[in-house]
């Protein structure tokens, strides 16, 4: 009811109402963004019920993740942006410190050290870095003259690659990759020159063999199988082949909710987590896939609007950077499921089963809402 009331308010805004604030405004929540997030989350739960082979417990677990993440979003939305700006160097320093601690005493999980046991739930410092790195860069460029010069870029590289490196040696290639993407997004909005981007690409191309050799064997195989999945139809290429079969066999309207054979008969691996989009495409078809894409586009557009009306460079860079990271995560995941991008182990934001990345994503939205809902009377 509140939402409807709010929408009515928005459209029937009269000068006399200007002083009156809606409940959402009081709570510092952006209705459009919240609506988009809620739709996506419900869509995710809906498909997770099917993807988990109708295990209600899995869905309830995910609801718990969502509630916790929503709480984080709500709390973060209450904090005015200038506080974030003040705290940014501190958060970054703590994050970096914890990354090092994790490397030393980290709880061993899934063959990689990434968890830090913190009482009731495990905490992943690398997840914090997904936020801290864009914040740190935004903080840095808020003080600097734009576009960045070479010194700025050198410092930015340090801000990005130190935590990325620490994450990568855990080893958590996926998260390190997201950290780099997140940092890169901020740099992109900071006005980094296109030719410089070109230069980085060239350097990457040259460095590729070195990176290749530093990769874990399973990561190398992933890239090789991405190039040619058929080389190992029952080995590493199995994921991609089965995922493409799931997507392709969906057709326009899909096989129907709960009727996907690829996931229910276990041909599709990781169908609740990284490959959940394949379940959507199989059961809901192109139709459902487009709806999902539209929800992502809507959320991204709203967030870009928030960035557009941001009041200072810090707000603008941070919000746009976080938004682009969110968008790219979705893009990379779907691209991976469709077999156009390598399997890098990225979840589909807010849809894939799992609490860790969900909390981070919702936290980012909390920051975005904080930025949008704490307007100062004047612009900087």
């Amino acid at each position, binding site marked *: 009811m509140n939402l409807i009331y709010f929408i009515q308010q928005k459209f029937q805004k009269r000068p006399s109402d200007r002083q009156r604030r809606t409940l959402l405004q009081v709570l510092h929540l952006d209705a459009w963004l919240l609506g988009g997030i809620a739709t996506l989350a419900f869509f995710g739960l809906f498909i997770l019920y099917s993807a988990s082979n109708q295990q209600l417990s899995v869905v309830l677990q995910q609801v718990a993740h969502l509630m916790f993440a929503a709480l984080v979003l709500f709390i973060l939305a209450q904090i005015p942006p200038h506080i974030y700006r003040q705290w940014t160097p501190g958060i970054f320093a703590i994050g970096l410190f914890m990354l090092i601690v994790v490397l030393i005493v980290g709880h061993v999980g899934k063959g990689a050290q990434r968890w830090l046991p913190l009482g009731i739930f495990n905490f992943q410092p690398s997840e914090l870095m997904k936020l801290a790195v864009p914040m740190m860069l935004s903080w840095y460029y808020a003080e600097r003259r734009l576009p960045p010069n070479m010194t700025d870029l050198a410092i930015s590289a340090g801000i990005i690659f130190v935590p990325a490196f620490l994450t990568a040696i855990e080893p958590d290639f996926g998260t390190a990759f997201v950290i780099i993407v997140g940092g890169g997004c901020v740099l992109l909005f900071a006005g980094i020159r296109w030719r410089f981007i070109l230069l980085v690409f060239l350097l990457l191309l040259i460095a590729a063999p070195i990176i290749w050799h530093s990769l874990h064997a399973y990561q190398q195989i992933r890239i090789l199988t991405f190039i040619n999945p058929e080389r190992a139809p029952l080995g590493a290429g199995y994921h991609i082949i*089965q995922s493409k079969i799931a997507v392709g066999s969906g*057709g326009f309207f899909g096989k129907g909710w709960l009727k996907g054979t690829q996931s229910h008969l276990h*041909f599709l691996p990781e169908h609740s987590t990284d490959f959940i989009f394949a379940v959507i495409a199989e059961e809901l078809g192109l139709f459902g*896939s487009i709806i999902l*894409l539209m929800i992502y586009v809507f959320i991204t557009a709203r967030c870009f609007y928030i960035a557009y009306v941001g009041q200072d*460079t810090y707000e603008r860079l941070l919000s746009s950077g976080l938004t682009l990271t969110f968008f790219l995560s979705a893009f990379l995941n779907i691209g991976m499921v469709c077999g156009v991008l390598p399997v890098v182990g990225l979840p589909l934001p807010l849809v894939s089963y799992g609490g860790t990345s969900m909390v981070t994503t919702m936290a980012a939205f909390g920051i975005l809402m904080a930025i949008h809902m704490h307007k100062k009377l004047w612009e900087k």
Partner: protein
Amino acid sequence: MKQKLTIKNTTQEKRCFKYRLVTIGVGAIILIGLLFIRLVYLQIDQHYYYQTLSDKNKIDLVPIPPRRGIIYDRHGEILAKNIAVFSLVVIPDRAKHLKKSLEALRTIIPISPADLEEFDEQLKEHRRFDEIPLKIELSDKEVARFAINRYRFPGFFVKAELIRNYPLGQAFAHVVGYVGRINIVELDQIDTSNYAGTNFIGKVGIEKYYEPQLHGKVGYKKIETDAAGHIIRTLEMNSSESGSDLYLTIDSKLQLVAEQALGDERGAVVAIQPSTGQVLVLASKPSYDPNLFVTGISNQDYQTLQNNEAHPLFNRTVRGLYAPGSTIKPFIALEGLNSQVVTPAEKIFDPGWYRVPNTEHVFHDWKKGGHGWVNISKAIIESCDTFFFNLAYQLGIGRIDYILDLFGFGKMTGIDINEELVGNIPTPEWKMRYVGLPWYTGDTVLCAIGQSYVQVTPLQLAVATATLANRGEILTPYLLYALKRTHHPVAKQLPILKDKLLFDQSEWDIVVKAMSLVTRLGTGYHFGRTSYTVAAKTGTAQVVSRRFKEDENVPYKLRPDSWFIAFAPVNHPKIAIAVLTEHSDSAPIVARKVLDYYLLKEM
């Protein structure tokens, strides 16, 4: 840091940022567009392809092989049946470390090098996901030992399988034939879907000729499986249709009598029911055990059979080509009478030799001193060569070939097994072409006593004898008595009247009368006296063109073959028989035993 760098142009930065934001926003829309295109490509354009793959993922077709039809003789005696055996099969695709597993397996179950060799060969011929038999006929102990170790050998299965068994063994090998593993040539010829799950196919004899009827129709089970290959449920079941059971015209008891009568001789016995053309006996000696071939004969066993100089694998009844000798005389005599070259009363004097008119060529009668005055009846009874030399000379090769062709020599009889050979009725053109020499009158003369280039099979001679018994009715010989399809009534095979030879009844009478006296007054005295009437003709086919002295010790291989053709009883013939014994003169004795058993038991 230098002071000037910190001077910020806020408006400029804001404008620059907004420009970037719009650019990147457009970029994001392009990326979404790319995803959209990819999705349309996979889900619309390639939908059918992926749908098929998805179905293939979950739906498995499991063939249900049909039961092979059972073969009985005319009285219901089983000649070929199916027995259950356990065999070890491998699906190479599912086996991990095939070589290692094989090694490990050999410590549990003995696997002979021959089995391994066969397995390696099959491995090359089949696809990786096909079942390949490794060892057939596991003992109960071996089945149990494998069962407890099963988990160690993924891709290896014990399979209960029906295999062919021939309870009467060698006696019927040349009629029934045998089945064996499907080889690569046969794989090209058969409808592979109908043979899914079947390892065996008829190789020779009845098993081959009636393969389509015996095999039946494969059934299918459509099952849904999960990624691990576990069966979730059966979606559809299409039962197989068992192969038809065949009843042969063969009288197995009579055939066994013939087998025993032949004893260790090399030879053939063919007996036909003249009124129908049903083949009662089709025996060829020596023979082999068809059961050896079913599960794949070992190389050594095969070599032994192959190199045996008695040629046990050789089906003499339909593939053995022999000079008919004097058994050809009744047919020539018929043509002589029919063309009025001789009259029944006409006599010639036989001094023991015959000189071809206007030449120096002299041909000797088998009887030194000759038969004296001989008419056509006496010529048949005593098998007078001189008389027939003269008759042949007068008839000419054209008429001789004509009559032999009418009686079915030099042609397929049309019996329902594939191995038949046609033999040869020589013509001047044939001789020119294959021997490279012109036709001499001497060749014609020798044809009349079944020598020269005439070659017939025992079956052809049996059919011709049945034709004599029928007085001209030629019935196609056949082995399939009746066929029983599942859920269908027994379908009986009807006799096929191929042709009717129109000779004067008196001409038949003369020849048949003469033949009926052969065992009593003539050359067939070895046959002895019988309580039933019998029309017969003996024959001696020379293997080399020289005659031996009475007391000469002739090497086995050079001894003449002996023929005996007969039908009995003379007036209402129940059986026509042709017996051949190689390098021996026991054909009449063999024939006697067979006829006695058949006629006296029945009477």
